């Protein structure tokens, strides 16, 4: 199935969940990412049991704590 992740089209296996997508996307530190799924921020404790559907749009938003 096709997803849009950070603006780019991505082909993934049917029925994967958000945790699995983060692995596919080679996100090394999932704790440092906030996930927006179809415009809604997803609770962190729902990454495992949120199954993605064809056509879903996701934004992986990185925590950035720097400033100095």
């Amino acid at each position, binding site marked *: 199935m096709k997803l849009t992740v950070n603006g780019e089209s991505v082909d993934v296996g049917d029925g994967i969940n958000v945790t699995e997508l983060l692995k596919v996307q080679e996100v090394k*530190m999932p704790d440092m990412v906030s996930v*927006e799924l179809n415009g809604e*921020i997803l609770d962190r404790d729902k990454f495992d049991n949120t199954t993605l559907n064809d056509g879903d749009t996701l934004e992986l938003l990185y*925590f*950035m704590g720097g*400033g*100095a």
Partner: protein
Amino acid sequence: MALTEDQIERYSRHIILSEVGGEGQEKLLGGKVLLVGAGGLGSPAGLYLAAAGVGTIGVIDGDVVDLSNLQRQIAHTTEDLGKPKVESAANAMRDINPDVNVRTYHTRMMADNALDLIADYDFVIDGADNFPTKFLVADACHLAGKAYSHAGILRFDGQTMTVVPNESACYRCVFVKPPPTNSVPSCSQAGVLGVLAGVVGTIQATEAIKYILGTGGLLTNRLLTYTALNMTFREIKVKRQERCPLCGSDPTITELHDEVEAVCDLSAR
């Protein structure tokens, strides 16, 4: 407050803009902006705000100038090594523009002083270098009803968004709570391309100026991300979240508290 002849000349390139004009310049001179942090983001933001004639600029930072700061923190000079950053930043701002009243706070923003610090300001610029302070700025600004600009930088990447409390998505709508302390690569050792701070801090100053002028459109409900390595900007639509712990319909954060300080763990990267 009428502009003096010197001011009319100093700000002539502003005044000639129909969106600013003499009236807008007077608004800027009456404006008050607080910089949280006088580092990579706070330096360019402060210098441009001073040049623009923002009349009162507060700057809070507990650190002193270190040699490793000078690669990007352009408000400080080699002669300032060892001085409180608020002092050298204040001097730099006053040198650019003696019109500006600079107030310095050589301390760290904490839950017990945050509301007092921001009370007198119109707009807050988050140039902090750690998550506890970034979340504290978001919480304090929400509780006090002050607009602010969030920004973060890391390596070659930056992000920023503007928040108008109770009108637009807040920092916690997007990031909810600080990441676990053992996974944070935000410390200075993680590295940052110096000029990146200039790009992002200058965007923050732009937002403060437009907010004071009441002109144009703010960077609200949008997270702007910048990847210097590829020179790409992306704008991600974000919206207020019903379940936001700060600005949602049933908030759990109704007073300030200090978040736990993250420890840098380089092995995690």
